[in-house]
C-alpha cells in the first residue's frame, strides 16, 4: 500500500513545488530581482557609507585638511597609501611644519578596510561612492589624492 501512497505523496510534493515557481512565473512582470546595470546609471545611487575609493575632499580655495601626519600610511595593512612630504616654513610663526607633497593612493592594492579613514585625525580623507574603477592599465589605479597646487587649510593641526 505504501507503494501507492508513495506515488501520491511524490506527485503532491512535485505539484507543490511547481505551484511556487508557477506563482512567480505569473508575477514575473511585477518585479524582477535583477538590475539593468549600465542603463540605470542615472538612478543608481550607492549608500552614503559605501566604500568605493578613498578621496581627499578639497574646498573652493583648493585647500584640503591633510597635515601629512602619516597615520593613514601606518594604519594601512597593504601599503596602499604612500605620503611624500616635505617641511615648509610657516610664515606667521616662522617654524618649520610638515606639509604633504603628494598623497599617493594605490587603488589596486586597497582592500577597502577603512582603517586609514578611521585613523585620520583631521578627516582629510573620506570614502567616495564611485565604484566603476576598471581601467585598461594598472598604473592608472595609482592616484594622487591632493590636487596640484593645493595646500592645507588654516587651523588644521594633528
Amino acid at each position, binding site marked *: 500500500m505504501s507503494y501507492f501512497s508513495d506515488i501520491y505523496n511524490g506527485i503532491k510534493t512535485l505539484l507543490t*513545488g*511547481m505551484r511556487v*515557481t508557477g506563482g*512567480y*512565473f505569473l508575477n514575473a512582470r511585477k518585479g*524582477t*530581482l*535583477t538590475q539593468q546595470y549600465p542603463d540605470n546609471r542615472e538612478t543608481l545611487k550607492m549608500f552614503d557609507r559605501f566604500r568605493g575609493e578613498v578621496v581627499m575632499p578639497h574646498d573652493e580655495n583648493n585647500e584640503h585638511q591633510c597635515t601629512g601626519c602619516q597615520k593613514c600610511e601606518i594604519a594601512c595593512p597593504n601599503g596602499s597609501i604612500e605620503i611624500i612630504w616635505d617641511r615648509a616654513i610657516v610664515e606667521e610663526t616662522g617654524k618649520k611644519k610638515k606639509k604633504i607633497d603628494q598623497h599617493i593612493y594605490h587603488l589596486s592594492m586597497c582592500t577597502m578596510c577603512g582603517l586609514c579613514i578611521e585613523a585620520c585625525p583631521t578627516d582629510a580623507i573620506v570614502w567616495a561612492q564611485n565604484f566603476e574603477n576598471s581601467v585598461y592599465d594598472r598604473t592608472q589605479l595609482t592616484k594622487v589624492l591632493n590636487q596640484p597646487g593645493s595646500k592645507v587649510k588654516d587651523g588644521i593641526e594633528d
Partner: protein
Amino acid sequence: MTKSIHDWLFSILPEGIASITEMVLIAVAYLALFAIAGLYLVLLERKVAAWFQLRLGPNRVGPFGIFQTMADALKLVSKELTSTDRVDKFLYNLAPYFVIVTALLAMTIFPFSKQLQAFDINIGMFFLLAISSIGVIGILVGGWASNNKYALIGAMRSGLQTISYELSVGLSILTMVLLTGSLQLSEIIEIQRTGGWLIWQGHIPAIIAFMIFMIAGTAETNRAPFDLVEAESELGAGFHTEYSGMKFAYFFLAEFINMFIIASIAVVLFFGGWLSPFGITEGITWFPEVFWFFIKVLLIIFLMMWFRWTFPRLRVDQLLTLEWKYLLPINLVNIVFMAIVIWLNWIL
C-alpha cells in the same frame, strides 16, 4: 502553394530530376524551419527560465532580445573548433551529426496541418520510435570518443537512461494506439475530429498514459530532472564536455528539437494535433490549422520547461528505480486497463 510548385517543377524538368529537386527543396525548407525553430526554442527556454527566476532574460539584441539566439548561433559558427589530441577523430566528429540528423529526421513525418506534412507513412508512430532512439548512439559515441572521463560517465548514463525510458515511451504510445487502431499520424488526428481528443476519449487510462509519456519523454530528451547526462553540478557538462563551437551547437539544438518532437507526439496522440479545441475554427477555411498545432506544442514544451526549472535532479539509480519499479508496471497495467476500456466500449 506546394501543389503549384510541384506542378511547375514537373513541367520544366524531366520526372526523375524534378522529384529529386523537390525532395531537396523540401529538405532545405525543413532544415531552415527547424534550425530557426530550434533557435527560438532556446530563446523561449531562456525567457521562461528568467521569468521563473524573477529575472528578465535576454533583452539586449533586438527588441526583447529576439535576435539573441541568432547572435549566439553566429558566434558559435564563427568559433574555432577545438578538441584534445587524444580524441578518436572520426567518431568524435561524427557524433554531433548523428544526434542532429536523427532529430531532424523525426520531424519529417509530423502533420503540422492537413496539408503541411512531408511524408504521411502508415507506420508513422513506429518510425518515430525507431528514429528517436538512434540519437542516443550519437551521445554514446560522442562521450566515448572524447576520451574524457566525465564525458564517458555522461555517455554511459545516457545509454542507461534511454534504453530504460524507451520502454515507457513505447508502451504509453502503445496504449494510445490501442485506442486509435492506427499508426498513421494523419489518421490518428482524423479519428479525433469526431470523438474528441484522445485524452478525452480514453479518459483515465489516457491521462495515466499522458503522465507517463511526459515523464518518460522528458527523460528521453535528457532534460531536467533527468539531465544526468549533462548534470553540470556533477559532471561539468557530461558527454559534450570536449565539444566546442558548432559541434556543441548541434548537440544543443538537437536537445531542443527532441523536445519539440516529444511535445509533437504528445499533441498528436493526446490533444488532437492541428484540430482546434471544441472545433471553434472548424468552419473557417482560411484559418491556418498549423496555428493550433504549434500552440499546443508550445504549451507542452512550457510544461517541460516548468519541470526543468522546478525540480532537483534524480540520482542515476533512482532514475532506474522510477522506470522499472514505477513507470513500467503502471504502464503495463494501464495497457490492460485500456484494453478493457475499449473492449467494454467505455470510450467517451
